[in-house]
């Protein structure tokens, strides 16, 4: 496949779609039916049902497990309110990339496993009956990395929110750039920031929620530009990963380096919020931000 040939104007890969059974949410959330969910931090276990009820937060140690985009939407949107955007929008292997495996094979495998066309799910939703644009990254899909399709779905979600005059909420869980898309991945940083400009011009809020992890190109573009930035406890957040920093500089890393709490203490994050309170906090924020400007609060009348 040659870059720049006539077919590169085509995006939607019908053949890939027909190969994939469905992008609807999987029946079980993160754990096998009837199985146990073991905390990756403290190794205490809970039943699958209890884990789902606890939003995949460990009741023993409070660790927040990584969750899929489908699960994130389930946790935040009013039941039945989520209407997915751009369900068939996929990218393609622009560079003909091959590292230890072909990128196209990695993509196909991730699509089937994660029930997603790429590493983000977006749509119109309601949170406590307030209409919002809602996007969630899926770390299980190639590390939630920024591909052209992820960037495009994100930009379209931002634009659709602006068009519908809705606040936009994005829950990010992303390792950063997708190496297999090279410089096109880098350019998604510019694309997402460009789209956010439209939202700002419409005076609509962007609430950026940082989940574990939010690194590299994702935090160095859209994710850092929330009007309000929230983060889940102990999420890894930063531009360069700790391992790379240690290798490059031999520096001692301070305690709690690059956690949500670390950045909160330095004025970079507004609030660190437990997942079990996230929906409630978003509701509060949306109620305040959706009220008419100035001192006229008609809902209080």
């Amino acid at each position, binding site marked *: 496949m040659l870059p720049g040939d006539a077919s*590169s104007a*085509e995006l939607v890969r019908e053949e890939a779609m027909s190969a994939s059974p469905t992008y609807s949410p999987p029946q079980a959330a993160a754990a096998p039916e009837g199985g146990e969910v073991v905390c990756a931090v403290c190794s205490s276990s809970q039943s699958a049902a209890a884990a789902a009820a606890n939003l995949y937060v460990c009741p023993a140690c409070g660790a927040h497990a990584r969750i899929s985009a489908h699960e994130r939407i389930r946790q935040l949107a009013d039941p039945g309110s989520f209407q997915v955007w751009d369900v068939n929008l996929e990218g393609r292997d622009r560079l003909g990339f091959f590292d230890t495996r072909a990128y196209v094979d990695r993509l196909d495998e991730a699509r089937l496993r994660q029930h997603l066309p790429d590493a983000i799910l977006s749509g119109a939703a309601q949170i406590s009956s307030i209409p919002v644009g809602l996007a969630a990254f899926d770390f299980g899909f190639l590390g939630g990395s920024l591909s052209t399709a992820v960037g495009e779905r994100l930009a379209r979600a931002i634009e659709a929110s602006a068009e519908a005059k809705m606040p936009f909420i994005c829950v990010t869980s992303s390792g950063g750039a997708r190496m297999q898309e*090279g410089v096109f991945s*880098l350019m998604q*940083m510019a694309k997402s920031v460009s789209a956010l400009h439209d939202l700002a011009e419409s005076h609509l809020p962007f609430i950026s929620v940082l989940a574990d992890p939010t690194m590299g190109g994702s935090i160095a*573009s859209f994710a850092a530009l929330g009007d309000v930035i929230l983060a889940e406890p102990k999420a890894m957040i930063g531009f360069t990963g700790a391992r790379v920093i240690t290798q490059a500089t031999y520096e001692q890393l301070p305690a709690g380096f690059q956690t949500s709490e670390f950045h909160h203490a330095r004025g*970079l994050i507004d609030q660190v919020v437990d997942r079990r309170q996230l929906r409630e906090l978003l509701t509060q924020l949306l109620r305040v931000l959706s009220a008419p400007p100035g001192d006229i609060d008609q809902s209080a009348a």
Partner: protein
Amino acid sequence: MTGGEGDGSATAQEMASAWAQVEGARHPDRPYSLDLIERCLDEFIELHGDRQGGDDAAVVIGLAKLEGRRLAVVANQKGRTLEERGRRNFGMAHPEGYRKAQRLFALAGRLQLPVISFIDTPGAYPGVAAEERGQAWAIAQTLEAQLALPTPYLAVVIGEGGSGGALATLLADSVLILEHAFLSVASPEAAAAILFRDAGRKQSAAAALRLEAENLMEWGIVDEIVPEPPGGAQTDWDGTADLLRPRLVARLEQLVSRGVDPARRRERYRRLDGLFQV
């Protein structure tokens, strides 16, 4: 890319070509930003500081003229002597460097100065202090500042264009690249560490990333490749500047006469990958 081993991996020739691009861009005798600013622009006056408590020498800002036209300048700056390399941190900026660039964009908007950016950085500095002071936030805000800049904006990649650190001063209306310079999502070493878990496979990573200037041109990410003197920019700084200056003049003239609309610049970066039907 079809494979040397028939498995899709890069051929020896592809690796050699990509690696030559990387070595050319990193050549220690290559002209750095100030060398080219001195030779291409007139009456350069350096300004200092981000006005928030820092002055990162890895980023240079200033005022200048080109063919009588006033300009604001922002540049990544590497050091040549041991002392200068340390002081300029090998061209890798801390948050203060990106905030210094933001200050320059704000100044340019206020005074209606076109901006020329010279890009030559391995990337943002990967250190503890940079992270503590909000490296990612500084880069994100600089991306935003570029996309709101209300004046003509021209960028030229003169050496290494590494990662988000390069992107922070690259989102111009026109982007030029010197023949042996490159732009990449990550350094080949970092990409190799991620892809192969082996930084030593940097040549394979460079080939797979297809980071040569011709590819960037073909994909529409840059608008023009500026030729270098035979043997590369490192052999002849004056000759490099003689080839670059007329292209800067012509491109700037074109941007000024076209009239600048930052919405058009945002549209360029919104649609850049050219893959998606609107």
